[in-house]
Structures are given as structure tokens and as C-alpha cells.
């Protein structure tokens, strides 16, 4: 469903994404791992058509994201980083707005909202304004927005960020469940999530893929593999402070 071919994104002098290629098929849950600033969000923003790639191609369901953006975007449900939402709206109003932009109306819209509300356990806050929600609820509201049109492709940028352990568990199960029928990519830097819900993991560092495979193929313990493959941000700073 998702085909990424030699994707490059340059910001000024920085190559944020430097020649990434991978595919995600229906029925797969791909975990996108990497340290902060490794290019995870940038890659996801190019898949969803928010950033235009500097080089390379992305296609979703056979539609090139640059050449046929509307067709590609229709297939995607996207949870952006930090779960942005219109804070002045109620949960219901926001989900209805998302449904309408997805072309749903009348009975189809009501059904879609009800289903997303049930999937994300939002019924108790349905009439609350989003800026009064706790972080967990706010996150799930934005996730519900991504699921509203029952998309074939899900792109989730740190879907469990800021959730409590129970909520994390629920969201991981939801992702696993959704992955049976959809193509799912989600980013994280929590390694246990890879074991919990992924069929495959891709580790990236400084804009390049450094390893990919099933959690078993990557080796155990995952944390050691991750640390060996990625260069820590603070790698240069620490010796300096130690010297002092």
C-alpha cells in the first residue's frame, strides 16, 4: 500500500531524510524506530503529503503523493505528532468536522463518528471542549480523527506519547487489531512497543535506515541492538562535560 523509493528531504544544510526506501503492505504493522531528530516525523510528513520531498517518490495505494495528492490523502488516516486538534471545538464537533472533510454526511457521518468514539473510548467526553481534556483523551481524540473514515493506510506519529500505562496498552492493542486489515506505520522510541504490536521494525538514524526486520530478526535484547545501531545525540557533548 505504501511504496517509498529513495526518499530525501533537505532543510537548508541538513539532510533530515537521506535516501530511505521501504514498502508497507496491507496486514502489516511497521514500527518506525529512531532517536529524536532521526527523521521519523519528516518521513511521515512526506508520506502524508504535508512536506514535499526534495527527492525520491512516495506512493500510497498506487497514487503518487505529489502528483495525485487528493487520491493518496483519501486513503490515509494520520495522527500528527503532539496530536494537534482544534481546541475550541467539542470532541463531537471536531470528529464531525473531520468526517465532513472526508466526504461523509448524514447517516454515514453519524455512524463513522459513533464507531471512532467507541474504538477510542471517548463517549464520556463527547460533549467536552478539547482544551479541557487531559492529554490522554486529547491524544485519543486526534487518533479517532485518523480512524474516522476507516482508512486503508494509517500513519501514526508517536501514538502512545503522553499516555498512561493503561492507555498505552489499549492503544497498542488497537494498533495491532487495526493492522490485520490495514497498512500501518507508526513511529516510537519506546522499544517494548515493537514487541507488543509490530510485525516489522525499521530503525533509522540520521535520515538513513540502519536495520529492518521482524523483532526477532533484529536480535535481542532490542535495546542493545538499538543503542549499537544509533549514535546518541549527546555522544560528543558528554566527554566535554566530563573533562571539566
Amino acid at each position: 500500500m505504501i511504496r517509498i523509493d529513495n526518499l530525501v528531504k533537505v532543510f537548508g544544510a541538513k539532510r533530515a531524510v537521506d535516501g530511505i526506501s521501504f514498502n508497507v503492505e496491507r496486514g502489516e504493522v511497521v514500527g518506525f524506530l529512531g532517536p529524536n531528530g532521526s527523521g521519523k516525523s519528516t518521513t511521515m510528513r512526506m508520506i502524508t503529503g504535508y512536506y514535499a520531498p526534495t527527492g525520491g517518490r512516495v506512493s500510497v495505494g498506487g497514487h503518487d503523493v505529489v502528483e495525485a495528492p487528493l487520491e493518496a490523502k483519501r486513503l490515509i488516516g494520520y495522527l500528527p505528532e503532539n496530536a494537534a486538534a482544534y481546541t475550541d471545538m467539542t470532541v463531537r464537533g471536531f470528529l464531525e468536522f473531520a468526517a465532513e472533510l472526508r466526504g461523509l454526511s448524514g447517516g454515514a457521518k453519524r455512524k463513522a463518528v459513533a464507531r471512532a468514539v467507541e474504538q477510542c473510548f471517548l463517549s464520556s467526553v463527547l460533549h467536552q471542549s478539547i482544551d479541557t481534556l487531559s492529554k490522554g483523551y486529547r491524544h485519543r481524540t486526534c487518533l479517532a480523527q485518523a480512524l474516522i473514515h476507516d482508512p486503508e493506510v494509517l500513519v501514526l506519529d508517536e501514538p502512545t506519547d503522553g499516555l498512561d500505562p493503561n492507555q498505552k496498552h489499549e492503544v497498542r492493542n488497537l494498533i495491532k487489531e487495526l493492522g490485520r486489515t490495514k497498512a500501518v506505520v507508526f513511529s516510537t522510541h519506546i522499544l517494548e512497543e515493537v514487541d507488543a504490536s509490530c510485525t516489522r521494525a525499521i530503525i533509522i538514524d540520521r535520515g538513513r535506515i540502519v536495520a529492518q526486520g521482524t523483532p526477532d530478526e533484529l536480535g535481542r535484547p532490542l535495546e542493545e541492538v538499538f543503542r549499537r545501531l544509533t549514535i546518541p545525540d549527546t555522544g560528543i557533548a558528554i566527554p566535554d562535560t566530563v573533562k571539566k
Partner: protein
Amino acid sequence: MRNTIVIAKRELGSYFSSPVAYVFLVIFLLLTGFFTFTAGQFFERGEASLGAFFGWHPWLYLVLVPAAGMRLWAEERRGGTLELLMTMPITPLQAILGKFLASWIFIAIALALTFPVAVTANVLGNPDNGMIFAGYLGSLFLAGAYLAVTCMTSAMTRNQVVAFILSVVACLFLILAGFNPVTDLLVRWASPAFIDTVAAFSVVTHFDGFQKGVIDSRDLAYFLSVIGFSLFATSLALRNR
């Protein structure tokens, strides 16, 4: 079209779900009242027209319209919802038009609420109501031009204050280019053709006709081109993500 309406509906709703709408409406009506009846000497003029009312609009809008429009895109950028909006299956043009129309409708509501001024003129005398209608139409286009400029400055930044100030400066230029004290200064060293060209860029020159009751297609074309150009510039500014 459908998407434009969906976006406009949400945007208009967000005006009224926050204090912005009510503060704006009250201040707008108070200021129009003050300028028309006190500073504009509506009664002392002894004529049944709304000249004292419309004459102030280019100046009144200079502050109020950017205040009403500064949040349009800057807030989307700051809150991260721009990413949400731009990854929906809609074209940027639909989003830009939807937001612009919502804020324009909001200003139109504010303008419609000044109807007591027109009623007063009708009670006290026999004004030319065609002229009043033309004045309202011109005022609406004037506000539309300022709003489109504000859309553009708002799309350039995530900071609403910056959007506001840039917009006020740009709109001030649109006024001053045709403002008599400024054109009189130019007369000393510039050719009349040059002055006319500069003045042709001004909202004042084009708003004058409406105030006199003339709906000239050239004036309409001017306002529509300012709106069109600014919204196009908005789309360019939004490409920078």
C-alpha cells in the same frame, strides 16, 4: 465547494465560540457610533446621508479588520492544526477560500448590525437609499480587501502579533497611496500621471465612488484583484511548512 463550506462553517463557529466575536462586535459598533455621531458630526451636517458613517471606514477597518483576521492561519501554524488540515483530502485553495469567506461573513455580520444608522437617516430625512446600499457594498469590499491582506500576513507567521502589525502596515499603504494630504505632497515633484498611478493602488480612490452611490465595475475589479492577489500570495506563503 463542499469542502470550502465545511471549512468556512468551522471557522465561523470558532469566532463565536470564543470571546473574539463578541468583543469585536461591541467595539466595532461603539467605534462606528462614536465616529459617525460625535467625530463625524452626523446631526450637525444637516444632510440625510451616511457620508459621516462611511467616510471613517477605511481608518476604522485599518485596526479592526487585521484584528479579526490575524488568527486565521497564524493560529493553525502555532497549534499544529495546519498539518492536520493540509493532510486532509482538500486542496489548499479550498482551505484558503473557506477561511477567507468565514471571516468575510463575520465582518458582514458586524456591518449589518450598523443598520440603526441607516434607519436613523431614514427617520430624520429622505436619504438616497441606493447611495446607502452602494456605500454598504463598497464598505464590504473594502473590508474584504483588508481581510485578504491579513490572510496573507497571517499565513506568513505563527505569531498573531506579527501578522497584525504587517497587515496594518500593508493596509495603511493601501490607504495612504490615495490619501489627499499624501498625494498633495507628491504634486510638487511628480507628474500628474504618476500620482494617478499611485492613487490607483489606493482603496480610498476606489471606495470614494461607492460612497457617492456609484457602483463602477472598475472599482469592483480593483477590490476583487486585491483579494485575488492576496489570496494567491497566501497560497504561496502556506507552501512554506
